[in-house]
């Protein structure tokens, strides 16, 4: 039929958008406006004079670049090594209390990065618990402080990522290899290595980016050693010199963007495997090693939290260890109470807004597929390529003069964008895994799409929604990166008080704040855990 030619032309334009085109365009425009435009504006903020001065031969840029690179490289290697051993211990050696160990190992993920540096100071500083215990004179400030603080801050994230890789490795190829008499070493090179290569590179990139873009650890424990994020922080937050900040921001975008692009292309080639049988090893030696490592790391984590407790509750550490609540009173006699309420409000609202926007976007990309969905999907995960510091700087440049500046709205906006990609991917995967015919069934049975969404699709993903909510909440509670540019005395979140107390060397109050954030986040995680267990039990009872 020749007239189909014309129909076809119309169709191909239509099929780019397919269903839900208006919503897709609307969300794409919003995402473009709040993610891409600020970054472009930041780049255009740079002028040639600033470029000259930043890259001048005697500028602070080069030493900071070198420090950033070396500390991050060393910290990444150590962090990945520890994380790999831990992930192996938890997933491969059959040890007990796995859940407890996992909780302990991932506790550092619940507090701001700056508190890891602070923990090191409390333990190993001039008056540190350990320093005094061993009468050591060595000091933690400087290069190695940054390295160890960064390891503390990043290894739990690496642990979770590597655990995910190991958890889903299939044992059947190994069984087949055993049957065929292939030696262990060859098994590693021909089965294990190809399987973990790409995901491990992703982990390395992610950890490197995470460390290289963080200013918290260096600010607290770096002493005179400065890294790029600290330069950016000092320039933009301290001296309001946004142009210089933008240049450094642009440099920091490079590793993040590289990581993002690598992930994008590595995933496209399809690295998913179908797990027939999970991998388990039974050797006793491995069990002992596994216990040793997990217990050791758990103890270090607990030691740091213990150090916060000592600092927060002792009258004057180290001279007077009598119990007191005066640091709590001091912290909350000022604006601490208000900032705590700010923090909780911001975290709740970010979680609420974030979950709704992520769900709507994921529904359009995962369940109403068209050519345009792919673009929308890319925009939704684009925030992965933007470090929090850079995002904050871009936001302050764009929104400084708008009515949202100085209100909690801007913090909710920046947090939603900053943490958007991970929860979005969670729900994208959940929606994608659901039966692809649900909407068609609705169509056939006369149930409209909205009802299928609210009564079938959303209820089926309720656990994912809870996880997403908790992700947004916990990260909003502890973040100090993007928000540090946008906080004023009116909308400041609690976590930023740590920076303030650090600057005045009031470690007791900083420890109080870190403990409160930890408590709130642990409570949030506890609630998530309870919801899951109660529902699982309920579901089980219903089936019998």
């Amino acid at each position, binding site marked *: 039929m020749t*007239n189909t030619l*014309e129909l076809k032309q119309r169709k191909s334009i239509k099929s780019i958008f397919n269903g839900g085109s208006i919503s897709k365009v609307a969300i794409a425009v919003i995402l473009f406006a709040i993610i891409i435009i600020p970054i472009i504006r930041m780049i255009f903020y740079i002028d040639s004079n600033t470029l000259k001065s930043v890259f001048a031969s005697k500028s602070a840029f080069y030493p900071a670049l070198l420090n950033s690179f070396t500390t991050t490289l060393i910290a990444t290697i150590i962090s990945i090594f520890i994380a790999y051993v831990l992930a192996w211990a938890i997933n491969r050696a059959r040890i007990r209390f796995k859940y407890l160990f996992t909780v302990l190992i991932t506790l550092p993920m619940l507090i701001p990065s700056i508190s890891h540096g602070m923990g090191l100071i409390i333990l190993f500083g001039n008056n540190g618990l350990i320093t005094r215990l061993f009468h050591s004179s060595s000091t933690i400030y400087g290069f190695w402080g940054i390295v160890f603080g960064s390891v503390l801050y990043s290894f739990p994230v690496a642990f979770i990522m590597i655990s995910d890789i190991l958890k889903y490795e299939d044992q059947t190829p190994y069984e087949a290899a055993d049957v065929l008499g292939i030696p262990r070493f060859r098994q590693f090179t021909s089965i294990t290595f190809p399987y973990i290569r790409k995901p491990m590179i992703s982990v390395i990139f992610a950890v490197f980016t995470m460390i290289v873009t963080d200013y918290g650890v260096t600010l607290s424990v770096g002493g005179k050693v400065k890294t790029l994020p600290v330069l950016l922080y000092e320039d933009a937050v301290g001296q309001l010199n946004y142009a210089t900040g933008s240049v450094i921001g642009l440099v920091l975008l490079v590793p993040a963007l590289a990581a993002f692009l690598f992930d994008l292309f590595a995933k496209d080639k399809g690295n998913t495997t179908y797990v027939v049988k999970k991998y388990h090893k039974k050797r006793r030696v491995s069990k002992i090693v596994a216990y040793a490592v997990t217990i050791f790391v758990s103890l270090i984590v607990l030691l740091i939290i213990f150090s916060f407790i000592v600092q927060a509750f002792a009258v004057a550490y180290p001279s007077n260890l009598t119990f007191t609540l005066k640091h709590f009173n001091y912290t909350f006699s000022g604006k601490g109470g208000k900032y705590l309420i700010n923090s909780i409000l911001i975290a709740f609202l970010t979680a609420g807004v974030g979950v709704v926007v992520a769900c709507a976007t994921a529904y359009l990309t995962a369940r109403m597929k068209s050519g345009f969905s792919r673009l929308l999907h890319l925009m939704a995960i684009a925030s992965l390529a933007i470090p929090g510091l850079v995002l904050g700087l871009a936001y302050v440049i764009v929104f400084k003069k708008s009515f949202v500046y100085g209100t909690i709205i801007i913090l909710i906006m920046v947090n939603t964008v900053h943490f958007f990609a991970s929860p979005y991917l969670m729900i994208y995967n959940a929606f994608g895994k659901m039966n692809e015919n649900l909407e068609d069934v609705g169509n056939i049975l006369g149930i409209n799409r909205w009802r299928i969404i609210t009564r079938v699709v959303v209820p089926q993903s309720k656990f994912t929604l809870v996880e997403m909510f908790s992700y947004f909440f916990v990260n909003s509670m502890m973040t100090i990166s993007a928000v540090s540019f946008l906080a004023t005395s009116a909308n400041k979140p609690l976590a930023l008080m740590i920076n303030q107390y650090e600057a005045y060397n009031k470690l007791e109050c900083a420890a109080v704040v870190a403990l409160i954030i930890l408590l709130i986040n642990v409570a949030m995680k506890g609630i998530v855990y309870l919801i899951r267990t109660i529902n699982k039990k309920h579901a089980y009872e219903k089936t019998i």
Partner: protein
Amino acid sequence: MKLEIKDLSKSFDTKEAVQHVSFVVEEGEFLSILGPSGCGKTTLLRMLIGLIKPTSGHILKDGVDITNFKVSRRGMGFVFQNYALFENMSVLQNVKFALNFVKLPGAYGEEEGALKDAKLNEKAYLRDISITEKSINKVEAKIESLSAKIEKCADEEKKEKLEESLKLLKRESLTLKDHRDLVSEHLALVQKDIKKAEVKLGKALVAFEELKAKDPVAAEEKARTRYTDEEKEKIARDVIEKMGLTEYINRKPYTLSGGQQQRVAIARTLALHPDVILFDEPMSALDVATRLSLRKELKKIQKEFNTTMIYITHDQEEAFAMSDKILVMDTAIAVQIGTPEEILKNPANDYVKTFVIDNLKTKIKSLKKYVNIAND
């Protein structure tokens, strides 16, 4: 319900998925569409239910053109290969859920709906005609300019080439005009449908007014457009019982076996009383024993409700065991339609011979030597 499929085609971008398929399914008949994977069976089925819009062609149900009707207005059910159950709901809820949204005919809803549906058809055909007209005009313009060129052209060789293109264009113009005329014919029919529907609606309105005056209570009952809770519960429980699922009524789908899940999907479809049910390889994920028992049940339902069933499969044995008629498909085209006997006796071509008959024979042969042992 008699279903007539006329010259149905579907193309995706450059790929022709279904080409000019026509066939008829009589009321209460069981038709299998048999063909290898990727031959266009599912596309054909999805066009019948309306999930995919055909590029051209028509679907008539008891003489009414339903090609452009909304999916849920076609009175058809659809059973998916992967069940597509609502995992968060129990068996009972799965079956009951759609009943909440069923709109009963009410006072004169049926007549009103028929008029709306017919108007939808009219709109679609008018659009098709207008697009075709535009294409015709374009082609005609090209023909005119080309003819002028040919007249002026002195070079014989070039002239010949141009004349060749002119011929092609003229042919294209003819096909377009044919298409326009065919759609216009359908448009005329649909416009008649509209007139009829208008008259019917008028009559129904008058009848309802009379009823209202005579017996207000009965009128109110007739005007009801939703099932009551008791009715929903009863309908759902009845079909669940019919599918032998009563003991699983409060279970979630993921706790059931594949066969049981497919039964729930069938129960969910039956609850809406469709007069045609379409099956998209519903048993391909099930084990042999479950298949056999489900086959029997489908035939029972077909007889009991006199439901027309169209069943997609790539399994020759399944098609021959269940069908009143079989439609054999090769890539995008229908090769033969007939009763199993007709196909066995007179295969239309070599493809039918090899894909259908030889495969079937091999299956039978491979088991033949065990028949006696099994019988003993």
